[in-house]
């Protein structure tokens, strides 16, 4: 099968969906002429015109709100927020408007929009450009949260998200854009709420998403050499969360480690650990471990940044502690 990058996969998804449905349009900062800060929308304004690929002023609150209003009135906007760190300015519109309208108005309205953004550390760009804030959105009733780790998942999930009738926060990872992977030429969709077993194993379940999937796979590879067999699961969408898949695996291995790049307190790892304990308590042979970024703003200095984010070494250590 052909291999393309995560960036190209996302771009293909946008092109296909914009061709398929005229109500799909993109708005965000530097998405047109510049082609997006991470070049996902490169050249799209030439294909679809500047009205459907709209450069906006630096106005995150209005970008999210304008997308909400357009979605409410029959369009399918894709709002790009350059960094999830700036999405905090868009949060009010997302959590108080987009997320709640359907419920508040008696199930009669809908807000079919995607807020595309990217997060994560690894580039040495410090506290305002490196965070993993998915927990903020997962927390909110009315929003779905999608975080693909591979080119294949990025394309299939973005297409599904655009067609879905709910407001979706679609979070990419800045360190994955250049990663290559197999993506079929034919059209495909990936349903929300369906995780994947990325590696089968017997001794311990490792749940990881976004860039941390690759960290977990690296750890699993190394542990294999020591005779430890890890099952690695990527939930792919954090909400809805494929608990059946995770619980099924934990019932088999009886041990679990959860890896997330988000901060520790009330993070996505905390949620998954809780769910495992709720659903698999009797099956567990050891405490469930979580590996996260500590509760520290992401520092710029490369040595500190590396220390802050979860590594294969830390995952291996956690697995060894519960074997």
């Amino acid at each position, binding site marked *: 099968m052909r291999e393309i990058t995560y960036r190209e996969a996302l771009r293909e998804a946008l092109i296909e969906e914009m061709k398929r449905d005229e109500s799909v349009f993109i708005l965000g*900062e*530097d998405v047109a*002429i*510049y082609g997006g*800060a991470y070049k996902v929308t490169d050249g799209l304004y030439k294909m679809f015109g500047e009205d459907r690929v709209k*450069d*906006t*002023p*630096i*106005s*995150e*609150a*209005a970008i999210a709100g304008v997308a909400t209003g357009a979605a409410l009135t029959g369009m399918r906007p894709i709002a790009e927020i350059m960094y999830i*760190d*700036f999405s905090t*300015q868009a949060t009010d519109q997302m959590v108080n408007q987009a997320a709640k309208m359907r419920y508040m108005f008696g199930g009669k309205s809908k807000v079919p929009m995607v807020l595309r953004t990217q997060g994560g550390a690894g*580039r*040495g*760009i*410090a*506290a*305002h*450009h490196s965070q993993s804030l998915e927990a903020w959105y997962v927390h909110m009733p009315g929003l779905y949260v999608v975080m693909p780790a591979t080119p294949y998942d990025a394309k299939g999930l973005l297409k599904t998200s655009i067609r879905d009738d709910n407001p979706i926060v679609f979070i990419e990872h800045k360190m994955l854009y250049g990663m290559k992977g197999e993506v079929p030429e034919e059209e495909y969709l990936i349903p929300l709420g369906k995780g994947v077993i990325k590696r089968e194993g017997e001794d311990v379940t490792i749940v990881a998403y976004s860039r941390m999937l690759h960290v977990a796979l690296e750890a699993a590879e190394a542990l294999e050499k020591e005779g430890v067999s890890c099952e690695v699961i990527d939930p792919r969408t954090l909400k809805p969360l494929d608990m059946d898949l995770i619980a099924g695996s934990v019932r088999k291995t009886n041990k679990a480690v959860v890896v997330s790049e988000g901060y520790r307190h009330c993070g996505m790892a905390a949620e998954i650990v809780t769910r495992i304990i709720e659903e698999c308590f009797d099956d567990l042979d050891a405490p469930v471990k979580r590996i996260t970024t*500590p*509760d*520290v*703003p992401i*520092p*710029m*200095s*490369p*040595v*500190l940044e590396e*220390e*802050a984010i979860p590594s294969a070494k830390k995952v291996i250590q956690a697995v060894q502690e519960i074997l």
Partner: protein
Amino acid sequence: MPFKETKEELLSLLKQMLEIRYFEEKVWELLARNIIKGASHVYMGEEAVAVGAISAIRDDDYITSTHRGHGHCLAKGGKLKYMLAELCGKATGYCKGRGGSMHIADVTKGNLGATGIVASNIPVATGAGYAIKLRGTDQVCLCFFGDGATNNGVFHESLNMAALWKLPVIYIIENNLYGMSVSVERASAVQELYKKGCAYNIPGEAVDGMDVMAVREATRKAVEKARKGGGPTLLECRTYRYQGHSRSDPRVYRTKEEESYWRKRDPIQSFWKRLIEEGVATEEELQGIEKEVEEETNEAEKFALESPYPPVEELAKDVYVVK
């Protein structure tokens, strides 16, 4: 118009602009050599704004800076070597290597900080203005931000409060014609940005941001008024960033002709020429200053490269005030 300033004052203005220019050229080089990691937004071409404006305030006055903050940091008392160490993520940098380019500031000098979130220091400066008012001193706060930031909600919220409460804040727009790739024309409904103050009854003025003396004079007048309780002013300094937004920016959104037009109006060259024409100094004296700056820059590089990285044990230090 002959100068009111002493020779020493005038030469100091030139020297500071040269320091910024040499610093930024060094930064650009170290980025290319991958010695500085991450992103750096350089201030080349805009030197007259920070230097002119900050020369019109006292040491006990405040400023707030931006993601393009190297010039502000230097003009508010920063030393090249600690700045460069910060950009390299070293323990000897102003922020112990945690901030890097986007958060550079010597906060002990009344520089309240640089921010990676566009516009987010506009309310912070406004808060400093309110604190000054509560304490009853005659300090002021200079608030720097870009043209792009004037389209963000907090700009408008802050200006309204500052006018309502007559706060001693001077809002300085560094209008370099673009916010990343998006021109003022394509981002702002109002082209003459100083006019945005009229919605809040804040007097505004357009200033030649390539002329250090013009910026200094406009700021001096606004500061004098603010110290007497006359409230805020909005200055729009028209300037140009010579380089791309960041190193990866191919600058497809602007023309070579435009770039060379602005480079011909270089703030350093034109001030240099004027100092000689007005008989303030000789060519040799000015060359002597440039030589000094060049040596300082090389020393700063040596200092930064030889400095240690921060110890990883200190990753979680300073998140909170701990007694």
